[in-house]
């Protein structure tokens, strides 16, 4: 089957998840003897298009439209809901979760959200995805001519091959602009989202005061590629933005490294981070549930431990 991979860019820079979506698309195409078409929704030049072949795109379709300066779900749906593909893949990001159901409804297709494994069996797409906030794994078969799938960020590692993708400029089909994106507030391209970052440093109530989150931010900064996360308790208390919340009513993260600082590990929190590759917990209470899922735990006063850890990480990074 041919697979359409809908990529994400902002301000002309491809987002990291784009290469992950291509890796997942490649898997379906290779299993069924098809090709991968990457779709880039561009407002102007996008950097790295010539590299997309190397990351798995046989064809790079570039749809350029002014509506994509700030983004337009209606234009994106029109561009992506193209017939003739066996699967349409997106990232399970704010954009992908918004677009996938729209595209599926327009194509009359089933949708699978937040997929963590996929394959082709008997000509059909079979997927695995976490349900019940990660407390169970669902396997499902998507039948019908096309399957629409969003893949969880940080799950499909980018795969590089030696190929070159052929660029093809395409026009956005006519669409009705029903929703207008008027602005992007607090834009911070440098700030990594917890759901995308390879290292997440999270803080909880053990920090005692909102200003003590500086300890968490300093450690994240020492890593360089880390995002700051927060427990539900501190978000509900108004210390941190909801966008940073990890867990049941927040975000689900699968980073390489997750560091939980002063977080006891309520079931809702564990649901959001249990698929991290390596988990470190720093907590005063040696019986805290977080230590049951942590690969490495340090018991004690976080106000003494975290600054030391920050210093060590900084030293390592400086020597790297």
């Amino acid at each position: 089957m041919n697979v359409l991979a809908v990529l994400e860019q902002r301000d002309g820079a491809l987002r990291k998840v784009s290469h992950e979506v291509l890796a997942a698309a490649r898997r379906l195409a290779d299993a069924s003897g098809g090709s991968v078409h990457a779709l880039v929704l561009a407002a102007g030049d996008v950097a790295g298009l010539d590299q997309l072949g190397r990351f798995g795109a046989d064809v790079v379709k570039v749809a350029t439209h002014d509506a994509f300066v700030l983004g337009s779900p209606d234009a994106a749906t029109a561009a992506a809901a193209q017939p003739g593909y066996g699967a349409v893949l997106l990232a399970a990001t704010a954009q992908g979760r918004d677009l996938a159901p729209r595209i599926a409804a327009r194509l009359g297709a089933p949708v699978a959200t937040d997929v963590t494994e996929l394959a082709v069996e008997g000509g059909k797409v079979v997927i695995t995805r976490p349900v019940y906030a990660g407390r169970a794994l669902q396997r499902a078969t998507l039948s019908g001519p096309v399957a629409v799938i969003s893949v969880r960020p940080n799950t499909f590692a980018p795969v590089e091959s030696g190929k070159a993708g052929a660029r093809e400029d395409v026009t956005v089909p006519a669409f009705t602009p029903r929703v207008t994106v008027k602005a992007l507030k607090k834009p911070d391209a440098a700030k990594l989202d917890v759901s995308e970052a390879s290292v997440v440093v999270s803080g909880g109530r053990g920090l005692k005061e909102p200003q003590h989150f500086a300890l968490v931010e300093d450690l994240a900064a020492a890593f360089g590629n880390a995002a700051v996360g927060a427990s539900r308790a501190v978000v509900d208390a108004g210390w941190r933005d909801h966008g940073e919340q990890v867990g049941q009513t927040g975000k689900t993260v699968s980073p390489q490294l997750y560091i939980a600082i002063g977080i006891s590990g309520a079931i809702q929190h564990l649901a959001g981070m249990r698929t991290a590759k390596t988990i470190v917990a720093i907590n005063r209470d040696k019986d805290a549930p977080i230590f049951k899922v942590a690969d490495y735990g340090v018991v004690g006063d976080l106000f003494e431990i975290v600054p030391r850890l920050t210093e060590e990480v900084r030293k390592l990074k400086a020597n790297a």
Partner: protein
Amino acid sequence: MRPPEGFPAGLIQRGAEPKVKIAVCLKRVPDTTSKIVIAADRASIDEAGLKFVPNPYDEFALEAAIALKEKAGAGETVVVALGGDSVQETLRQGLAMGIDRAVHLQSAGSPDALEVAKVLAAELKEGGYDLILFGKMAVDDYNHAAGPMVAELLGLPCVTAAVKLEVAGGALEAEREVEGGVEVLAASLPAVVTCDKGLNNPRLPALKGIMAAKKKPLDVKPVTLGAAQFSVTGLELPAERKAGRIVGEGPDAVAELVSLLRNEAKVI
């Protein structure tokens, strides 16, 4: 204001009268703290002993609907749910919060979000709603699909995962969190909005509301869903994480921790 194509004309024109008509689609889900036990069919959960609650994100939608009607001063709020007879209990919880009436779409349900959306869209299409609200996702199947699918089927504007929503003069302005910022979106009514945490603080039903809910209208409509193109073939518990270890106590354990992260886990 011109209704979008494909939407019956005349539904949203109510002269100068400040009235709103809002629908909320509600799902009954297992309580988020409940322990999940896989049923004997190894494709569903064992519901025995589970506590069921309104989907937490749908509570933000219920609150938004009630608050918007209060602000407008007049109008009607309707809560719609699909499922077996047990969803009537969940619908009553919406009525107890302050929703005016309920519609129970009687069906065993479907794992295919599109088939569910089609039935919801058919119910909502002729309702003359200014706003159709959903939670941004259901915490059981983890789909984020029903709202945008219903919008697409009805040809309506759709804003997903709203953390801020203002409605005035036949239009809405909303904000939603995206990676790298906060989007500000605008659309004309009627529209579909899915609600995220942060939008509001859902009220708890007062005793008076709970008593009143028993007398509020609840229509039962049997519905038939189309064949599912999404079939669940298995459900299993995730692999337990391998037991970790306590590296040590206090700041003196940091050197050992960093060494393990670097040499054993290879994540630094």
